[in-house]
């Protein structure tokens, strides 16, 4: 158990400087993803509103990155100030057999192996996600956890980690209103930020529902940051 965790971490660390032997063992879909990514370099001087953004969220069986697994992935594209619902990404995975449904069911409401969803398998879902992401900038709330879950999943299937530029809306919110006496650390949860920026909290804890809330939060935070900085936001401003 401990050993595989160590191996995962090693793989993850070497992900961005992949050796030839590693590259050779990558599945085809991941190699394609890397090719797409290599073809697109973003300059820090580019205007943020001109860049392709994907807001991402993962629902999992729990919060232990070593033990828990992804149950569903949701993503929405944002261009400029628009969220395109037609270009959503949504996928569900069956609950792994050794996982007893616990508290997480109460959180995300995904009943294990419910017939309401069409399930795919992990490699297919990952391949579709990478295809959807392309070279977009990934935006998410406390996105570090979701990324870790996805990267571990990628590693389990012989692929390297995600290489996209990442922006965390929690960090953005913190930058806009730093934690301190008036704003305790817990105030950067998606719930409290949504409340602060008056975003209705419907469909919380579904991958796509959280994505939508995060996407609106992202647009609202950006506007406020642009006002604070005093000019249109470029990539380097973040």
């Amino acid at each position: 158990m401990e050993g595989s965790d160590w191996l995962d971490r090693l793989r993850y660390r070497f992900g961005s400087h992949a050796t030839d032997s590693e590259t050779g063992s990558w599945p085809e879909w991941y190699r394609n993803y890397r090719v797409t990514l290599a073809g697109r370099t973003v300059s820090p001087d580019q205007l943020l509103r001109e860049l392709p953004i994907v807001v991402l969220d993962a629902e999992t069986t729990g919060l232990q990155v070593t033990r828990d697994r992804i149950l569903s992935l949701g993503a929405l594209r944002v261009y400029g100030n628009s969220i395109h619902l037609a270009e959503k990404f949504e996928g569900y995975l069956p609950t792994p057999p050794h996982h007893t449904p616990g508290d997480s069911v109460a959180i995300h409401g995904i009943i294990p192996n419910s017939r309401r969803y069409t399930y795919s398998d992990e490699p297919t879902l990952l391949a579709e996600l990478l295809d959807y992401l392309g070279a977009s900038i990934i935006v998410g709330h406390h996105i570090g956890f979701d990324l870790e879950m996805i990267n571990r999943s990628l590693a389990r299937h012989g692929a390297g980690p995600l290489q996209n530029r990442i922006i965390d809306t929690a960090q953005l919110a913190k930058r806009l209103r730093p934690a301190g006496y008036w704003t305790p650390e817990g105030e950067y949860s998606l719930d409290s930020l949504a409340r602060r920026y008056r975003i209705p909290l419907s469909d919380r804890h579904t991958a796509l529902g959280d994505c939508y809330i995060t996407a609106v939060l992202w647009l609202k935070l950006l506007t406020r940051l642009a006002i604070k900085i005093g000019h249109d936001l470029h990539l380097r401003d973040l």
Partner: protein
Amino acid sequence: MPNQVTHRVCDFLKDIEPFSYLDRAVLLQVAARVEVRYQPPGTVVFRPGEPPRDRFYVVKEGTIELFSEDQSGEELLVERCGEGELFGIRPLLADDNYVFVARAAEESLLYAVNSEGFRDLIGNYPRVLQYLLASMAGSTRYARAYRAATAKSTAPAPDEVTPDLQALQFVQQSREPIVCQPEQTIIDAAKAMTEAEVGSIVVVDEAQHPVGIVTDRDLRRSVATALVSRQSPVSAIMSSPVVCIGERATIADVQIAMLRSGYHHLVQTADGTDRSAVTGVISEHDVLLAQGNHPAVLIQEIGRAKSPHYLRELRDRAEAILAGLLDKEVAISYITAVMTQINDAIIRKSMKLALARMQADGHGNPPALFDWLALGSQGRGEQLLRTDQDNALIFEDVPKEHYNAVKAYFLQLADYVTEYLNTAGYSYCDGNMMASNPKWCLSVAKWKAQFSRWMHDNTAEHLLNTSIFFDYRGVWGNGSLPDKLTAHIFAEMEGHSTRFQASLARAALQNPSPLTFFRNFVVERSGEHKDQFDLKARAMRPLTDAARILILSARKGNINNTFLRYEALAKLEPQNAQLYQDAAEAYEVLIRLRAVLGLKRGDSGRFVAPSELTRVQRLLLRNSFAPVREIQQLLELRFQLTFLR
């Protein structure tokens, strides 16, 4: 595969017109293609001149303001769209660029609805089309073009188009007409009618042109009572000339013709006159069969009424007919024609009752020829609901020594008439513009003098008097006296037309532009004002006033109806035809809206609280304001009021 976010969008849209007309499954498809657009405060959604890129907007949160820009670049607030309201739809359907600036008044979230799929839906959902047409009616040019363009696609499902335009359906060609020659005997004609089991026979000449008609009633009246021999030619008892109507006549046309002529049978001919061959006969019975609730029945009943209380009851029933017609969205020209006939019938009945009362009181018959005039909206034949009475009486000139006695008789008569009308539900006029007022019950000579004074001395009161009085119409009496007055007015106007007309025009512009209404409307919603909107003074009167002044300056005094006035003006000034047409359509919308509101609330419908309007009504009302403003500008230019002010 619809997801939670799509469902959430769908839930929001489903209560909003026109999405409310769509089935859930279809709405989900629409929702799945929505773009959620975030607008920070002060940011622009679109600008004038930009093409609408296959989308229109629904405000999810926040407020979007639409501004028009005048030449100097100054912005004028046109509309404020709050949560659940649509904007940016007209340019899209009209294939036109945006004309307004849309800007977020506060942080807003919009649903940009992809119109590509939406356009396809229109064919399957006529109510969506209706909504869109209503929302575009502001520039009726587009509505017309659009209607023409989509007529084909909506045609296959006529049953689904909800307004049941029964009155506009064509009358069924009932049967092969039964005809006879004028020389044939009455008994032969009666035999032919019995054989064919019909109630009328058309008398025709060699060319099959109708020269008369004989009905069951004629036979009963003359032959059965042995007044005329059965061997006499039918020409002895036939009604002649006949009232003809074209083959493509609608039920509405037939009803109007019957109401006007008082005849119960119309002859259909190839070209609608008695100079072409007979093609059919339409009886009142045919119309009754075609349409259950017949105003003519009511008018007959009014004729039989013996008390003003019963008149009130009948007028209440007329309101049920009105409600039905409005509900079916029957053309307003038809509705006003029917209601004017009913109102006129009640005035005539009141006059008959009053004359009988004068007899009973021992005052005898009228001592001189006279005419009873309907003024204001009833004078123009545009009164749908019972409003205040506006009437006057004019009698022929009599020797000076008799004048006072004659006037006293007519004042007493007018007292009775106005009392009966009041009982019937037409309340007394606040301004006392009634024939029972000594100032409004005059001989021809005195009326002329009074008119001249009004025209020379343009006080506000005089201008109001003239404006009411220009819309007069003789309802009862000799019929020749109003024309004498009209002739006098036009002779007077020759003398000092410019100043008088300019004064009238200026008075017509006293009412502020109704566009401010929507500012008030917005304020009202945020709770600072509770003002109602005066439909009559702010929107309708500017249109009727303008029509009157323009028609007066065109020397067409005999046209006393706003629609007919605009129609005539459009012919006189082809360069302004579009504006006049738009003005007439706006007036139609306003008349209809006022009647619908008045019926709902049981009052005159004059004042409206914006909150009681449906979204479509608000749109229609807003759109009717553009022609009001344009026509006011035209008056200003034409009468050079900018210099006078």
